[in-house]
C-alpha cells in the first residue's frame, strides 16, 4: 500500500444509524391534509395560468389544486398524471423554483409561491400507495413498439402507447427500471423506493413487457428492432461521463459522480458506504449538488464544490445551491482543475482562477490554489455513447453528440423516435423527458393509425 493510499481516509460508518436516517429522510416531508387545504387555498386559479405554461408537461395546475381544495384528491391525481405519468417523481425532483413555482403570480407581491410541488405530491401519493387504477387501454391495435431505455422518457412513452392500444416491449440496460430516477437522483429526494413504486404503477396498465439487462449495441441492434417492430423509441439517456481532460484522471479516488450516486441509491445500508474525509466535486449542475450534499450527509468532513463559472451559470437552481450551502458544502466559483496530485491515490487537486474575456469566452487567470482531497467526483455532465446506436444508425442525424429530433420526437429515420436526455435541445430534466416520451407516443400512434 502506497503512502498516499494510507493517507486516504475513505471509510464507512462515519455517522451512527440515527444520523444517517435523519440525513436521508424525506427532504420535503409530505403535506398533511390540513396543510394541503391551506396551501391549495392560496392558489388564485389563474386564467391561462402561467404555472401551467411553465410546466414542460403542461399539467393543468390550477385545475388539480382546485380538486385538492374540494377533497377530490383522486380527480386531482388524474389531472396530473394524464399529462405526466411521472407526476409523482416530478413532484419530488422537479426544480419547481425555476418552473411552475417561479411562474406563480403570488411571487409578484409576496415572494412566496403556491407550493405546487408539494401539492402535486399530496395528490399523487395515495394513488401509488393504494395502486389506484386511473387509466385504461384503448382497444388493441395489433401494433408493436420497441422502447429502448426504461428511464422517464421510455416509460412515459411506453405508458402512453399502451393507453392508446399498442403493445410495447421496453428494453432496459440496467437491472432495475427507472433510469436516473432509480440510479441518478439524491436519495433524500425519493425515499421509500418510490422510483420502483412508480414504475410498477406505470406497468400496471398492461400491454408493456419490460426486459431488464438488455443493452443496445450489445444484446440487440437498432436495425433488429426496426425489422421486428412497427416503431422504435430511443430513450437511452446519456451513457458515458465527460472527462475533465487532465493527465491523471485514472488515479484512484477520482470517479464519476453519477456512479457513486447510483451506489448510494442501491446501498442496502447507507451507513456502511465508504465516503472520503475530504471530498471535492467538480461541476455546477444538479448532479454536482446531489453528490456534494449526499457526501456531506454520509459524514464527509469537508466537501468543496468547484465550478468554473459563476452562480448564475450553474445548472443547479438557486434553491439547490442554497441547499448545498446549508448542508455545509463550500462552493467555489470561477475556478477549474488543472492538475491532480498523488501517487496512486489522489491527495490534492490544483485549480486555477477563471474569468470571461471580452468575447464571453472562459479564460485562465492563473493564481492557482490547491484543495487536499481523498475523493474527487466529476459531475461535469454526460455524453451520448453514439457507438451503441451501431453502424445501422446511418441516416440517424446526430448533432453536438445528441440525436436530432423534430418537435414530435421524430428522428431522421422514418420509424424511429427519440426523447429524453439523448436528444438535442433538451434540458436534462425528468419532466422534459416525460414530455418527450408522451409527445412521441402520440405521434407514433398517429403514424401507426395511418393518419
Amino acid at each position, binding site marked *: 500500500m502506497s503512502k498516499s493510499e494510507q493517507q486516504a481516509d475513505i471509510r464507512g460508518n462515519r455517522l451512527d444509524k440515527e444520523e444517517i436516517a435523519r440525513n436521508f429522510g424525506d427532504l420535503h416531508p409530505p403535506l398533511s391534509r*390540513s396543510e394541503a*387545504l*391551506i396551501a*391549495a*387555498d392560496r392558489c*388564485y*386559479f*389563474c*386564467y*391561462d*395560468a*402561467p404555472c401551467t405554461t411553465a410546466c414542460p408537461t403542461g399539467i393543468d395546475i390550477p385545475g388539480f389544486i382546485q380538486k385538492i*381544495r374540494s377533497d377530490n384528491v383522486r380527480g386531482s391525481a388524474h389531472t396530473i398524471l394524464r399529462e405526466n405519468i411521472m407526476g409523482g417523481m416530478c413532484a419530488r425532483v422537479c426544480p419547481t423554483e425555476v418552473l411552475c413555482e417561479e411562474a406563480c*403570480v*403570488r411571487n*409578484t*407581491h409576496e415572494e412566496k409561491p403556491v407550493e405546487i410541488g408539494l401539492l402535486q405530491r399530496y395528490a399523487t401519493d395515495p394513488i401509488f400507495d393504494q395502486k389506484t387504477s386511473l387509466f385504461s387501454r384503448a382497444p388493441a391495435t395489433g401494433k408493436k413498439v420497441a422502447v429502448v431505455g426504461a428511464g422517464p422518457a421510455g416509460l412515459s412513452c411506453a405508458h402512453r402507447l399502451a393507453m392508446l392500444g399498442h403493445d410495447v416491449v421496453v428494453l432496459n440496460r440496467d437491472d432495475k427500471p427507472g433510469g436516473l430516477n432509480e440510479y441518478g437522483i439524491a436519495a433524500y429526494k425519493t425515499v421509500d423506493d418510490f422510483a420502483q413504486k412508480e414504475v410498477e404503477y406505470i406497468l400496471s396498465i398492461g400491454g408493456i413487457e419490460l426486459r431488464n439487462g438488455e443493452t443496445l449495441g450489445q444484446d440487440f441492434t437498432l436495425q433488429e428492432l426496426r425489422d421486428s417492430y412497427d416503431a422504435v423509441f430511443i430513450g437511452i439517456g446519456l451513457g458515458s461521463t465527460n472527462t475533465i481532460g487532465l493527465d491523471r484522471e485514472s488515479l484512484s479516488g477520482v470517479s464519476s459522480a453519477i456512479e457513486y450516486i447510483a451506489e448510494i441509491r442501491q446501498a442496502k445500508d447507507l451507513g456502511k458506504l465508504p465516503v472520503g474525509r475530504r471530498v471535492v466535486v467538480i461541476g455546477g449542475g444538479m448532479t454536482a449538488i446531489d453528490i456534494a450534499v449526499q457526501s456531506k450527509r454520509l459524514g464527509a468532513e469537508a466537501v468543496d464544490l468547484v465550478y468554473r463559472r459563476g452562480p448564475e451559470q450553474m445548472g443547479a437552481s438557486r434553491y439547490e445551491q442554497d441547499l448545498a450551502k446549508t448542508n455545509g458544502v463550500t462552493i467555489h466559483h470561477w475556478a477549474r482543475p488543472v492538475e491532480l496530485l498523488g501517487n496512486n491515490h489522489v491527495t490534492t487537486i490544483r485549480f486555477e482562477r477563471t474569468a470571461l474575456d471580452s468575447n464571453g469566452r472562459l479564460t485562465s487567470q492563473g493564481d492557482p490554489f490547491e484543495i487536499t482531497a481523498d475523493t474527487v467526483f466529476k459531475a461535469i455532465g454526460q455524453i451520448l455513447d453514439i457507438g451503441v446506436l451501431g453502424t445501422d444508425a446511418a441516416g440517424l442525424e446526430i448533432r453536438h453528440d445528441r440525436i436530432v429530433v423534430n418537435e414530435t420526437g421524430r428522428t431522421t429515420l422514418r420509424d424511429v423516435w427519440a426523447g429524453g436526455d439523448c436528444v438535442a435541445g433538451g434540458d436534462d430534466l425528468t419532466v422534459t423527458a416525460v414530455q418527450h416520451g408522451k409527445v412521441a407516443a402520440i405521434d407514433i400512434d398517429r403514424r401507426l393509425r395511418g393518419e
Partner: protein
Amino acid sequence: MADLKTTFLGISSPNPFWLASAPPTDKAYNVNRAFEAGWGGAVWKTLGEDPPIVNVSGPRYGAIHSNERRVIGFNNIELITDRPLQTNLDEMRQIKKDWPDRALVASVMLPMNEPTWAKYLPMVEETGIDAFELNFGCPHGMSERGMGAAVGQVPEYIQMAAEWAKKAASVPVIVKLTPNVTNILPPAKAALDGGADAVSLINTINSIMRVDYDSLTMFPTTDGMGTHGGYCGEAVKPIALNMVAEIARTKETRSLPISGIGGITDWRDAVDFLALGASNVQVCTAAMVYGFKIIDDLVDGLSRFLDEKQLALDELVGKAVPSVTDWQYLNLNYVEKAVIDQDLCIQCGRCHVVCEDTSHQAITHTVNGERRFEVIDSECVGCNLCVSVCPVDGCISMHQLTKGSDPRTGEPISMEKADWTTHPNNPMRKTK
C-alpha cells in the same frame, strides 16, 4: 379613546356590546366570565315555563368551514334553557347584584296566552333585570310548539304578545325578530304597534348545513335523523344588515330603537350595524367560536375608529341610513368604469376570465402579444365584478366618468340625476 358608554332604552352599559341570548349566557358561570372579560351586557338564555324543556344530547351545532377551518357559518338546534326557572332567576339576581354597571336582559319565550305572560313576567322582573327580550325568533324546535319563529312570522301574534308583555312588565320590552319572513317591516311594525320599546334582529335562519358524504344523510344528525337549525355567524351579516336598514329607513318603523344582531365578529361589523341604524349590538357566534376575549378588539377597534372619525358613538348610529334607498331612485346617468393599476396587477387573469365568461367581455388578456389585462371602456358597464374577484386589494378600482361621452353607449355624460321613475323606458314613469 372615545367613550363607548351606551344607553339603550335608558339602560346603561359600559360599551354597546351585549352577549345575545344563547348558550354563552346560559348560566352565571358563563356570564361572570363574560363580564370579567369586559362585555357590556348580556341577554340571558331564553327562559320558558317550568318544567324546563329537554335538549338533545347529541350534536347541537354544525359549521361551515373555510379550508383553514375558519368558521364561516354556524347553525344550532339547541332549544331555550333546559334548567329550572328558579335556578336561572336566582343566578340572574346574583349577577345583577354583582355587576350593577352591566346590562342584564331577560329573554323569554312563553305560550300564546295572556295568563302565562302575566304570571311569569313579574317573577322574572323581580330579579332586577333591566329589560325583557321576547324571543319570537328561534326557527327550530320551539316553533313546532307554536312559539319562537312561529310567533315572529305572524305580525298579529307579535302585536298581541307585545301588548301582554307591556302590560305585565314595568321594564322596557324588546321584541326579537325572526329573519324567516319575506318582509321584515310588518313584524317590526307589529312590535311597535304592540307597544314594544325596541326590536332586536336578526335571530337565526332556517338551515341545513350539508349532507354527510359517506352516509348520504343530512349532517349533523341525532341517531341518524336531523332537523333544520338556525343559521348564524359571519355568513348571515348581510341579511341582517338589510333588515336593520329597512326598519331604520322606513317611516312607519324608524322610531323603533334597534339592537343589531347577526354575524358580528370584529369591530367593523359593529360599525356596519350601528351606521345602518342599530343603537347597540349583540354577539353570539363569534364568542362561541373564539371565546369572550374578542371583546378586547370589539371595544378597542370601535373606540379607535370613532377617534379617527371624530365621532361620538351616538353620532355613528344611523349615519349610513340616508344612503340606503330603493333601486328605482338610483341615478341612471351616473357612469363608472373599472381601471386596473398595472403596477399592482399580478396578472392572474381572474378579472378577464370572469368578465369574459359571465359578464361583458370588457377585459383583455393580451395586448400587443403580451399577457396584459386592461379594461375595454367601450364594453365596461361598471359592474364591479372584476373589483370583487381581484385578489390584490386596491389593484382594480372604479372611476366615475364626469365628461365627454360613455364609450359603451355613445351617450354624453350628464351630471344631472335621472332615475327609473322618469326613465323613458319605464311604462310607469312619472311625467314632470
